[in-house]
């Protein structure tokens, strides 16, 4: 018998589908990242019925599958590797450099001419004896939203909302890694985060941080398609997406300079830099060279907090509303598979 605790999923950290919906090679789907919940992939089916026709009965009788697509969530403890993979798969605009074992991925916003996000495949299943019929491959997968949250010193929470093309392909022969062979990651905790926010971008507010949350939304849309079959044939970025929102809770009140940036008749343009650093070779840094903040004061226990929202401002320096520099062990991302 399978169990939720036996749930595993396999991706290819440095791989992507060469063409949307064409499954990646099984040999490239070997990286098991630990996640927190057995969020089984869901298949959503749109049925067409004849209930709007006079069919000799009351209500719908005949059902035809009109379309299939799917969704799933991934909740994981934040790590440099999983975040970098997700950012690459969301934005696609990756430049990598470096040499073994230390590489740098510079990930920028999608080019104005880019319509389709990268897509990938993955395998999931219940890794128990006799349960190979629970092993399925999903393809045409895109990441719709990424949320990364830190509260205090604890581990970061990474949540991904994924969409697939609606197909499920049996993978009875897949072999999942044993527990000791889970993909090695550098886990991120609240104490790894440093944040600078101000007109110069050097104003360090790290000692005042209470919580920090980043949301990137691709606003994925599925254009109406008449392509053969019932599966999704294309996912696109939503218009004016992806968007990035940063929400910061700070031990500060209306006397803090940041409130002044917001309060000014002409709100002060600020620079935001947040870095998650384990060491000089393993880190993720978000730079937003130009942005506006809003600030709301509220009580929190015995202190006053400022709830700050960083509003994105596309700019030439970042080539968008922000740019990520990820220092990892990945020589490159998004290599076509097969």
């Amino acid at each position, binding site marked *: 018998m399978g169990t939720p605790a036996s749930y595993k999923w396999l991706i290819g950290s440095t791989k992507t589908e060469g063409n949307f919906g064409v499954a990646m090679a099984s040999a490239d789907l070997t990286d098991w990242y630990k996640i927190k919940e057995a969020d089984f992939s869901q298949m959503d089916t749109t049925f067409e019925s004849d209930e709007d026709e006079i069919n000799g009965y009351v209500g719908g009788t005949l059902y035809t599958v009109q379309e299939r697509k799917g969704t799933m969530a991934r909740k994981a403890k934040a790590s440099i590797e999983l975040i970098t993979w997700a950012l690459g798969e969301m934005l696609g*605009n*990756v*430049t*990598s*450099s470096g040499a073994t074992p230390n590489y740098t*991925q510079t990930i920028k916003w*999608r080019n104005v001419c880019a319509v*389709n996000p*990268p897509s990938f495949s993955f395998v999931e299943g219940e890794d128990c004896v006799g349960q190979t019929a629970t092993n399925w491959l999903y393809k045409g997968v895109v990441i719709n939203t990424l949320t990364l949250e830190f509260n205090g010193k604890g581990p970061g929470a990474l949540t991904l909302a994924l969409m697939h093309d609606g197909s499920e392909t049996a993978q009875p022969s897949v072999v999942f890694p044993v527990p000791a062979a889970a993909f090695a990651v550098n886990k991120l905790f609240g104490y790894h985060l440093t944040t600078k926010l101000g007109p110069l971008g050097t104003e360090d507010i790290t000692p005042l941080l209470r919580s920090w949350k980043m949301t990137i939304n691709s606003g994925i849309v599925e254009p109406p398609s008449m392509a053969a079959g019932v599966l999704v044939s294309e996912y696109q970025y939503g218009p004016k997406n992806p968007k990035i929102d940063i929400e910061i809770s700070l031990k500060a009140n209306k006397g803090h300079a940041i409130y002044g940036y917001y309060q000014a008749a002409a709100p002060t343009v600020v620079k935001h830099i947040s870095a998650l650093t384990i060491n000089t070779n393993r880190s993720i840094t978000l730079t937003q060279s130009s942005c506006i903040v809003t600030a709301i004061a509220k009580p929190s226990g015995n202190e006053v907090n400022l709830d700050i929202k960083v509003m994105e401002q596309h700019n030439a320096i970042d080539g968008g509303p922000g740019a990520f520099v990820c220092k990892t062990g990945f020589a490159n991302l*998004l290599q076509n598979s097969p």
Partner: protein
Amino acid sequence: MTEVDKTSAKVKIERVAGVDPITQIAYISSDRPGGYSQWQPEPGKDAFEVSAELAAAAVESGGFRVTEDSRVKLKPKKGGE
């Protein structure tokens, strides 16, 4: 500053010495409209002949420059500079 002639079929580029070697570049290609193409330059190799689209992205990365014989048709700057 060197600009890539995007009308050229092939452009020769070479690695810039002294910077971290580029291992991957994403670029918009006419072969793959709507999405990014990815290029992984061969490690240890310094000179490449690539499409103009890729050459433009490679130069922008800072890790490559256009070789002398491919440095053609620089656009004149406004104001006669």
